[in-house]
C-alpha cells in the first residue's frame, strides 16, 4: 500500500475535532516551526521540492522566497480553495474530512512568511465545508493555536474564511484576490505578481489547499524524508480525484511516480474500467489539460510507461503528452463520444470566461457553437480546421490562463481524435442519436503522433 502522509489519519472517527486531531499528532508542526526561524522553515519547504498542487506545479519554496519581505506593508497568505475545475474534487475532501490539517498548514506557513493575517477563499458552493472550517478555526483559537502570542511565542495570527461568489475564474489567483477585496473577480494583469503587490496591494502568497496542507508533514518529517518519496523533481505525494468510467471513483493519495497503468487498473486505486469495457482516453489533470488516448496515457510516444509525475505526464510536450495539473483524473471508456465530451468542456469555459479580453470572451463561445453543430450532426469538414485555428488564436494571447485552458482541450481532442470529428460530419444521421457511441463504440481511430 502506498504511503499516506496527508490522509494518514483521515479515517479516524472524529478527526475533524481538535482533541482527536491533536491526540494523533496534530499541530506538532506549529510547535516545531515556532522553535525554528522563519527562514529555516522556508528553507525546509524549498528543500522538500514541494510543487504547487493547484495546477501549475510551481515550486512552493521558490514562490515563498519571492515574497517581498523588505516592504513595510503587511504580508498575507491566501489559500486557494475555490476548486471549480471539472474533474477536480480533492481539496473539498481534505477540508471536509480533516479541516485541522489545512488550518495547521496555514499557521505554520504564515509563520514562515511573516503573515499576521491569512485567508481561506472557499468555493461558494462548498457552504457546508465553510461551516466545518469555521468550527475548526474556532477550536484552534480556543486552544491557543490562533490569536495573540501563539503558544506563548511572539507570533500572533488571525485566520479568516471567505466564501467565493460562485465563479470558476475566481480560482485564478489574481481574480481571487480581486474577489477577496470585494470586487468583480477579473484577473489582473501581471506584473506585478502577488508576491510584490497582491491582496490590498500588499505582498501576498497564494497557494492551493493541498500545497499548504503538505507543509505540515514536510516540517514534521523533515524535507529529506519528504523528498525521499516521489521521483526526481516530483517529490512527495499527490491527491488525485479519479472520476469517470472506472470501478472505484474516488479521492486517492498516491506517491508521485506511481505508474499510470497501476493507478487505473489496480484494485488499490481505480480498480480498472467499469463493465469490463476498454479504456479509450484520459484527461489526467482536470478538464484544462490535453486529453490523451489510451495508447499515449499508458505509455509515452517512446514506448516507456507513463508515471504519475509532473515530468512523465508532460513527456512529448503537447504533441503526445499532457500535464499532471490539479490531479483531476477523468477516465473514459470506449463508448464515450469525444466530440460530445469536448463540447461539454467548451461549454464550461464559455460559461466561465470573465469576458475581459477579446480572444477568450469571443473565442470560447465560438468554439462551443461550432462543436455543438458538429456533435448534433450539422457540422462540415472545414469546421474541424476552423476549431484548430480559433483555439490557436486564443492560446497564449489572453490575460489569464483560462484562455489556454479553453483552447487546449479542443486542440488536443482534434489532434488525437480527428477521425471521430470527421465521422460526425460524415454520418450525421448516426450521431443525431445522443447515445451514438454507447450503441456502437468507435475505437477504430488511429493515433497519429507527428513528432
Amino acid at each position, binding site marked *: 500500500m502506498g504511503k499516506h502522509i496527508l490522509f494518514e489519519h483521515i479515517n479516524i472517527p472524529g478527526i475533524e475535532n481538535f482533541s482527536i486531531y491533536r491526540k494523533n499528532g496534530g499541530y506538532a508542526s506549529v510547535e516545531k516551526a515556532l522553535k525554528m526561524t522563519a527562514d529555516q522553515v522556508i528553507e525546509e519547504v524549498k528543500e522538500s521540492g514541494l510543487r504547487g498542487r493547484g495546477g501549475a506545479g510551481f515550486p512552493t519554496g521558490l514562490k515563498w522566497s519571492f515574497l517581498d519581505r523588505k516592504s513595510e506593508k503587511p504580508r498575507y497568505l491566501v489559500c486557494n480553495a475555490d476548486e471549480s475545475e471539472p474533474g477536480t474534487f480533492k481539496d473539498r475532501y481534505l477540508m471536509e474530512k480533516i479541516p485541522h490539517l489545512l488550518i495547521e498548514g496555514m499557521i505554520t506557513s504564515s509563520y514562515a512568511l511573516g503573515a499576521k493575517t491569512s485567508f481561506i477563499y472557499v468555493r461558494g458552493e462548498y457552504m457546508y465545508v465553510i461551516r466545518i472550517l469555521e468550527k475548526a478555526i474556532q477550536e484552534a483559537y480556543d486552544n491557543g493555536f490562533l490569536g495573540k502570542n501563539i503558544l506563548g511565542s511572539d507570533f500572533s495570527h488571525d485566520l479568516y474564511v471567505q466564501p467565493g461568489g460562485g*465563479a470558476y*475564474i475566481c480560482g485564478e489567483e489574481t481574480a481571487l484576490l480581486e474577489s477577496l477585496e470585494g*470586487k*468583480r473577480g477579473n484577473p489582473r*494583469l501581471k506584473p506585478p505578481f502577488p508576491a510584490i503587490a497582491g491582496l490590498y496591494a500588499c505582498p501576498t502568497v497564494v497557494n492551493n489547499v493541498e500545497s499548504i496542507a503538505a507543509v505540515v508533514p514536510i516540517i514534521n518529517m523533515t524535507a529529506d524524508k519528504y523528498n525521499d518519496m516521489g521521483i526526481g523533481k516530483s517529490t512527495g505525494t499527490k491527491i488525485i480525484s479519479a472520476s469517470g468510467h472506472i470501478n472505484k471513483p474516488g479521492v486517492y493519495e498516491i506517491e508521485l511516480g506511481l505508474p499510470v497503468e497501476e493507478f487505473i487498473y489496480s484494485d488499490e486505486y481505480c480498480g480498472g474500467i467499469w463493465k469490463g469495457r476498454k479504456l479509450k482516453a484520459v484527461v489526467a489533470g482536470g478538464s484544462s489539460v490535453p486529453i490523451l488516448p489510451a495508447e499515449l496515457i499508458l505509455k509515452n510516444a517512446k514506448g516507456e510507461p507513463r508515471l504519475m509525475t509532473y515530468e512523465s505526464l508532460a513527456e512529448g510536450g503537447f504533441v503526445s503528452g499532457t500535464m499532471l495539473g490539479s490531479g483531476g483524473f477523468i477516465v473514459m471508456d470506449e463508448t464515450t463520444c469525444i466530440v460530445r465530451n469536448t463540447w461539454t468542456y467548451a461549454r464550461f469555459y*464559455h*460559461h*466561465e*470566461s*470573465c*469576458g*475581459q*479580453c*477579446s*480572444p477568450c*470572451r*469571443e*473565442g*470560447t*463561445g*465560438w468554439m462551443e*457553437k461550432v462543436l455543438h453543430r458538429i456533435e448534433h450532426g450539422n457540422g462540415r469538414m472545414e469546421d474541424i480546421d*476552423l476549431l484548430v485555428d480559433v483555439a*490557436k*488564436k*486564443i492560446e*497564449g*494571447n*489572453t*490575460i489569464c490562463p483560462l484562455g489556454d485552458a479553453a483552447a487546449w482541450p479542443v486542440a488536443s481532442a482534434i489532434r488525437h481524435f480527428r477521425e471521430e470529428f470527421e465521422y460526425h460530419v460524415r454520418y450525421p444521421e448516426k450521431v443525431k442519436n445522443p447515445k451514438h457511441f454507447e450503441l456502437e463504440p468507435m475505437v477504430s481511430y488511429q493515433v497519429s503522433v507527428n513528432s
Partner: protein
Amino acid sequence: MAKVTIDGVEIEVANGTTILNAARQIGGDLVPPAMCYYSSLKDSGGKCRVCLVKVAQGSAKDPRPIPKLVASCRTPVADGMVVENLTSKDVLEARKGVVEFLLINHPLDCPVCDQAGECDLQNLAYEHGAEATRYEFERRTFDKIDIGDKIKLHMTRCILCYRCTFVANQLTDGRSHGVLNRGDHSEISTYIEKAIDNDFSGNMIDVCPVGALTDKTFRFKSRVWFTNPKDAHRDCKKCSGKVVLWTKGEEVLRVTARKDQYGEVKEFICNECRYDHKNISDWIVEGPRHIDRDSVISQNHYEKIDLQKLKKEVERQLEFQKGKQLPESTNGSMKV
C-alpha cells in the same frame, strides 16, 4: 533611461515607459493599434489585445525573449529590449485573430451608426481584418438603454474596452463596477449612470472607441463626414473650453473634446460646453480642425493646405529618415 528597439528603430525613453508609448514616441506605422488603452485613464489597457507585440529580447541584462506575446500598452520597456511589431508574423497573425474576435459579435451596422467615419473598430477592421467573416451564428444583442438623458448606450456595439467605466470611476468618489455579468454576456451596466450628474460625464462618449455610447443631441443628425469640424473655444469656468465644433453651414450639430492622433482626448470638456452651447456665436472659432488619423473625414478636403507648414513637416520627416532623433513637431497635427 532605457534604450529600446522597435521594428529596428532605436529610441531612448524614460524608465517605466510602456512599449506602446515608446512606439508612439517614434511614431509612424510601427505604432501598435490600441482599442482599450487610454493614457489619461488610470488602469486602462491590457484587455482588447490588439496591441500585442513580440519581445524578441527581454533586456540587455537578460536577453531571453518573452515566450508569449505581450500587451504593449501595459508592458514597460527594459534597457536593451528588442520589440517586434509589424516585423513579426506571429504578431500580425495574432492581431488578425483579435480583430476577428472583436467583429464576430459586432452588429456591423455601420450604415446606421453615428460613429461610422470616426470609429476605431472600423479603421482597425479595414487595416487588419479579413474581408469575409467565418462566423455564421446568431450575434449577441442587447436592448438599447439611456444613460441619463444625453447618452444612449447601444450595448450590442460595445467591445468591452472598459474605458467608460474608468471615466465613471475616476470622475466620482467611490468605486463603481460598471460591468455586469460574465463572458460574452458581460454588459456595461447602468451603474455608470451614477456618474451622470458629474459635470464631466459626457466624456464617456468621447472615450468610447465604437458607437456604443453616443450623444443623444447629435444622434442621426448627420453622417460625421458631412459635417465640418472646427477648433473653437470659449471662456469656461469648469473646463479648458477647448473643443471641436462639428457644423453644417452655420448650425452646430455636435460639440466634442479634441482628440489627438491616437484618438485620445487630452483635455476633457464639461457637459455645459458639450451640450448647452450649440450656437456658433457662443464660440470663438480658431479655424478648421485637422483630423490626424486615417478616417473618412480626413478624406474631405475641407482644409486649405498651408504650404509653409507642409514644407516644414516634410523637412522634419526627412531629418527623421536620416536617423536623427525626431524633433518636436512644429504643428502638433500636421501629417503628410
